[in-house]
């Protein structure tokens, strides 16, 4: 079977002509299958949306009721028939509710992995390898420079800094969905049990994680205008708050940033980060290459990120591969 007959890149997103649906479309379409709740993958205005229960919940929280005309829950691993195409959702380990989508027709299958990772994350179901003929992988960190360290080691760095600078407010920049909750959960796992303060943009999603059984400990919104309140405290907020007026309420803030990009010093410097925490919700280079080896698909399609390096690696390893030029996904998205 020609794989493009089953899934092909279109300006709206990845399209399945047989089942007449799109995966993570960037424009409103009649039928969308959504891998996870990040805003570049999950957009409003579609007709019917098929996604995991958590992803649907997250979309509703972020975009409000009526973000689409019709919601349909995809239970993990359950086979769903759409006009003769068999579709199933499998955990991707990226954020709460994130799934890979397997599309199968007449015994030929493609897995669109969405964003995925394989390192420790107490806040979501771990990635599950799914056999397929064609594997569509992300390549956000698809360069040999990226080796994300053990996240607990990064937490130790933060704790060490809290001991060393007990009077400074440690502001941890982390994307609102997934990264923020993961950082908090990891910090708890590292034994930090003091109250953690949140930027307003994180409150709703943290509340939601708690309803899904993810224990984040003692949290409070960082609303007080009294500087002393936040002395030596950990405050988690979206990275955009770094340079905003909001930051001024904190005592001598020490900016930290939890992101895979923090691997590269210049990135940290550009953003004015003093304490880079290399914590990523995407695969690093060894994980990407190991995953492709493990799945051993006939062909690999590489999308959003540094496609050329991963395609080159596949060529060096005699694996057929091509870049899949999808538009509309944030190259810099390390949520």
């Amino acid at each position, binding site marked *: 079977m020609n794989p493009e007959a089953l899934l092909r890149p279109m300006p709206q997103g990845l399209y399945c002509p047989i089942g007449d649906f799109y995966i993570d479309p960037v424009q409103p379409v009649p039928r969308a299958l959504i891998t996870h709740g990040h805003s570049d993958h999950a957009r409003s205005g579609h007709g019917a949306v098929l996604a995991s229960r958590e992803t649907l919940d997250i979309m509703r929280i972020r975009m409000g009721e009526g973000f689409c005309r019709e919601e349909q829950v995809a239970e993990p691993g359950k086979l769903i028939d759409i006009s003769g195409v068999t579709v199933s959702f499998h955990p991707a380990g990226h954020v709460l509710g994130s799934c890979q989508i397997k599309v199968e027709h007449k015994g030929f299958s493609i897995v669109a992995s969405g964003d995925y990772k394989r390192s420790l994350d107490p806040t979501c179901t771990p990635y599950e390898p799914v056999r397929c003929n064609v594997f569509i992988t992300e390549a956000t960190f698809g360069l*040999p420079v990226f080796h994300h360290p053990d996240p607990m080691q990064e937490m130790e760095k933060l704790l060490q800094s809290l001991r060393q600078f007990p009077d400074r407010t440690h502001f941890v920049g982390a994307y609102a969905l997934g990264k923020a909750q993961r950082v908090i959960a990891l910090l708890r796992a590292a034994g930090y049990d003091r109250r953690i303060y949140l930027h307003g943009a994180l409150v709703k999603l943290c509340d939601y994680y708690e309803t899904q059984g993810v224990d984040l400990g003692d949290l409070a919104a960082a609303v007080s205008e009294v500087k002393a309140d936040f002395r030596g405290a950990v405050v988690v907020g979206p990275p955009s708050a770094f340079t905003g007026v909001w930051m001024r309420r904190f005592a*001598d803030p020490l900016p930290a940033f939890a992101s895979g990009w923090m691997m590269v010093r*210049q990135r*940290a410097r550009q953003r004015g980060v003093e304490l880079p925490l290399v914590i990523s919700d995407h695969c690093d280079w060894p994980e990407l290459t190991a995953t492709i080896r493990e799945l051993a698909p006939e062909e690999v399609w590489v999308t959003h990120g540094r496609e050329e390096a991963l395609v080159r690696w596949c060529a060096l390893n005699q694996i057929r591969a091509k870049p899949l030029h999808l538009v509309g996904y944030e190259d810099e998205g390390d949520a």
Partner: protein
Amino acid sequence: MKAFSALLDRLVLTPGRNAKKQLLADYFRAVPDPDRGYALAAIAGTLDVADVKPKMLRELVMERMDEELFRYSYDYVGDLAETIALVWDNERDPPPREAEPALGAVIHSLNTAGRTAVRALVRDMLDSLDASGRYAFIKLATGSLRMGVSAKLAMQALSELGNKDATEIEALWHGLTPPYESLFAWIEGRAEKPELKSPAIFHPVMLANPVQDGDLDGLSPSDYAAEWKWDGIRIQLTRRGDLRRIFSRSGEDISGSFPDILDAITFEGTVDGELLVGGLADKDLQARSFSDLQQRLNRKSVSAKTIEEFPAFVRAYDLLFRGEEDVRALAFLERREALKAVLSQGAPGKFDLSPLVSFSSWDELDRLRQAPPDPVIEGVMLKKLDSPYQAGRLKGPWFKWKRDPHTIDAVLIYAQRGHGKRSSFYSDFTFGVWTEGEGGDQLVPVGKAYFGFTDEELKVLDRFVRNNTVDRFGPVRVLKANKQEGFVVEVAFEGLNRSNRHKSGVAMRFPRIARLRTDKLPADADRLETLKAMIEA
């Protein structure tokens, strides 16, 4: 090595001086000898390490990965050392590297390995270190370790280990060598003060405080001598037997830039003075401007032609040693007499004595400093007649009283965010003045300033930037600035130089924002012609 690389990682990203000092002090407390001493040397720039060439590093990394993948990586990261540090493990998950080699051992093996062994040594080293350790190692081995920490700051951090004064540490510093074990032992109170081996060392200089309101009230003019404050660079000359040295004010050896002066030190002793370019008082030749002096600064070697065009000389202020005799405890006037005698033994034409300025009241001196007889004078110095030579900036014995800065009114054109505490404020400004251009008057940038204003004023400036941005280039905001709309500031500066590198043709020295002129329209700001006339003057 782990503690050292972790320290580097933190230091390069930490803008605050106090935070840097604390990171250093904590490191010195936690790490044993000799590693901490080598780290100190690496930071202060006194470490000698056998040079590893980038070419070899490139070859080593090519042994283990595809060239095209390396190129993609290098393009992305931009820094060779960092790229190699990051890609070294390539597809492998990093193996556990519990037992990293110690910094001292790393430096020792680099310095003792022969030319042929170095290659294998560097490879093994990169294998045994983690990414952050590899980065530190490559920076060390290629001699390009820059982390924004001055030797002075490192010494202040050292002083926190025990109750020792930073100036006292600085006094010893230049006579000791890495790994400074005797220095640490003394600071921590475990040993006597170390004996200095080399005689021709730098001695920390005595500095003056600026005269501020009320400082001179109650002080008697007859207790003080006044000298002109010359606008050159402060230096220290030393000769002990065959050893001659010229040090900058901070103790950096700048002998290489001034062979003409070095050869002329025919006296024995240590002299404090101002390095200038041009003539000599005793030859009735005037000193030349700071921009001429700049032709001689920061050069490793200097051509005969440059020496001829920009001849240097030293205007002497003070004497620290007469031969081997330490005269710092003598009174100012006694030292000055001794200085005269020492200078008379120096080669002619290269040294003169900074003349005293006679005055009988503070008011008279105030008038003199405002209208000095020579353009290369930037004010007056006040020195208590009985003051000994004491390192550091003590309040009382010496004052500097500068002529008032020049000021102009300029219009803010661009703004950028500050760093550290100021990262949420637009605090770095480029300002300009009017000049005739195609299609009428336009603003031409004449300088940048990021201080001078109060915290309250900064809030006003920041608000203006946020509400009046018309364009952005990366981190730079372009501000609304035309004849009727924009922000006028009074810029104070110490001097103007002609400059070919700036579009305006002028470069300001030490510009700062002195006042916000919210009362003025941009149309009222100064013109470039005004600035150019100030250079001519």
